[in-house]
């Protein structure tokens, strides 16, 4: 397994890329050229060094000419580390082509002049120039100068034939075949590799085009979703007003008539009007919750972070709860951070607690909700534990989604509904907070709510 991992890590491509500068890796075209440069410098010397080695082994020549020929070929292995160390690709590519020109001129001059079997290698110069370098005006001029200069030197050296070292051309027949085979293999390998890279690049371009097309589609869909969201928010705002106004009137007038009926001692009317009043109040409560939920979902609930401590917010919540559900006790437990001043949308925090308390009140009117403000190392949150009238702990699961098939939450079951918990969860999501079950030091199960320090950070983990 380890061996296969190493193999998968050390591919030919990754080994070649090791020497390529990072800025070239990020550009597909430059990366392709650098890969060819590296491939040529890695395997070219292996192939072409067979020529001086054969000359030496076949005893055609065993002097400085063979040594210089071999060294000028092996010099190509120095280029990759220099490239990695300096990152000067273009200069190295030009020098490398000049290095090839030197090898060819030296081999031809040393072993037969224009009749030498190494002459076809001169064709490598334009090929390498095409593969290594971009078609930029001044670079192209330098290379043309280099190629024609090399040819001129070779012709000049050959024409001055009295300066050519002596060589037995009959002995060069075998090496001529090796040379031709080497140059053919070199051309073939380079062409195949170029074709492979070209194909990969074309695939990449096709995928890129597909991604651009998908991205356009996503942009259109996002715009449509935003438009739908804005329409939904507009509908909710309008509907909120349209529903609440007549309901307020129903509730207000029914209460007025109820009081009049009570004053007149009309018990039958009082009972009927009481039903209308209670139903109106229940309906308004439910509509308010659903509208709040929808408003948060549409991202239209205003956020108003302020600096305050939990203890100051709790005092008001406690008074509210006492007024609405006298049998339900809201208790501030010691958490150590109740007087810490924290920047939070306290309206949303109050809404979470108000809804948790309301959900408890619908289950058991004589329950108790204990809340502690906790914090450590810059994290801030709340620890919530709820108990029924017998003092038994009630699990508090805030992971509730309204309108979900997996949830038994139904907004129509007012009176024993869990819509309050769904709304508490929505408020928590709006604040970017998280909740989880935990066990307090005293062994009691509780729910820990953690708030983020800022809107673009996740909340820090908090222990109970």
């Amino acid at each position, binding site marked *: 397994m380890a061996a296969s991992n190493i193999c998968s890590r050390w591919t030919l491509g990754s080994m070649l890329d090791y020497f390529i500068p990072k800025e070239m890796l990020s550009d597909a075209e430059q990366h392709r050229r650098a890969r060819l440069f590296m491939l040529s410098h890695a395997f070219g010397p292996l192939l072409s060094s067979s020529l001086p080695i054969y000359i030496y082994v076949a005893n055609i020549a065993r002097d400085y000419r063979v040594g210089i020929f071999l060294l000028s070929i092996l010099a190509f292995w120095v280029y990759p580390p220099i490239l990695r160390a300096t990152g000067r690709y273009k200069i190295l590519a030009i020098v490398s082509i000049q290095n090839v020109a030197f090898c060819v001129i030296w081999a031809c001059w040393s072993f037969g002049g224009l009749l030498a079997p190494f002459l076809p290698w001169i064709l490598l110069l334009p090929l390498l120039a095409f593969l290594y370098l971009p078609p930029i005006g001044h670079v192209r001029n330098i290379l043309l100068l280099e190629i024609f200069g090399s040819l001129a030197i070779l012709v000049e050296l050959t024409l001055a034939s009295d300066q050519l070292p002596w060589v037995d051309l009959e002995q060069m027949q075998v090496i001529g075949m090796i040379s031709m085979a080497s140059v053919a293999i070199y051309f073939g390998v380079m062409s195949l590799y170029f074709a492979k890279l070209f194909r990969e690049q074309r695939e990449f371009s096709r995928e890129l085009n597909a991604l651009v097309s998908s991205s356009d589609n996503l942009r259109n869909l996002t715009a449509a979703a935003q438009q739908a969201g804005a329409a939904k928010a507009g509908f909710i705002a309008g509907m909120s007003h349209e529903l*609440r*106004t007549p*309901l307020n009137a129903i509730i*207000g007038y029914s*209460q*007025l008539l109820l009081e*009049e009926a009570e004053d007149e001692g009309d018990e039958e009317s009082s009972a009927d009007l009481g039903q209308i009043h209670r139903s109106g109040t229940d309906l308004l409560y439910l509509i308010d919750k659903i509208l709040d939920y929808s408003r948060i979902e549409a991202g239209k609930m205003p956020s108003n972070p*302020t600096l305050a401590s939990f203890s100051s917010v709790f005092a008001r919540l406690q008074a509210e709860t006492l007024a609405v559900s006298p049998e339900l006790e809201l208790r501030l437990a010691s958490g150590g951070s109740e007087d810490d001043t924290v920047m939070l949308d*306290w*309206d949303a925090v109050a809404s979470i607690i108000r809804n948790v308390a309301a959900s408890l009140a619908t289950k058991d009117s004589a329950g108790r909700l204990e809340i502690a403000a906790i914090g450590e190392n810059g994290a801030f949150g709340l620890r919530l534990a709820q108990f029924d009238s017998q003092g038994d702990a009630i699990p508090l699961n805030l992971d509730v989604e309204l309108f979900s098939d997996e949830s038994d939450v139904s907004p129509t079951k007012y009176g024993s509904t869990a819509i309050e918990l769904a709304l508490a969860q929505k408020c928590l999501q709006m604040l970017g907070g998280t909740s989880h079950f935990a066990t307090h030091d005293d062994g009691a199960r509780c729910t820990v709510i953690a708030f983020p320090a800022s809107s673009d950070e996740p909340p820090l983990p908090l222990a109970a």
Partner: protein
Amino acid sequence: MPLILIVEDNEMNRDMLSRRFQRKGLDVVCAVDGPSGIEAAGEHMPDLILMDVALGDMDGWEATRTIKSNPMTAAIPVITLTAHALESDRKKSIEAGCCEFETKPVDMNRLFEKISQFIQI
């Protein structure tokens, strides 16, 4: 008999509140928006003002600030009525100079308790 000024743009709410207060033996005058509320406050010098927040161009907070900035009407207690029990709404009301804050739909018993802190009913 104590006089209450109701500044409320919704006709049904005005009617409902007026009748409820009158049943409690209070005198009532009404205004339909911020500017007419400010004018009515100066003209009638009520014992208490019940100010709706959502009133149109001039909201209830701005009308309250104007009333409080006039030495003649500055001492009149103002209770605001808002649609949501938001901490931010409560703060804005206090900052504008209101002495109490009540949410809609109005719970009359709770409202009477709050009113009784300022006037005899």
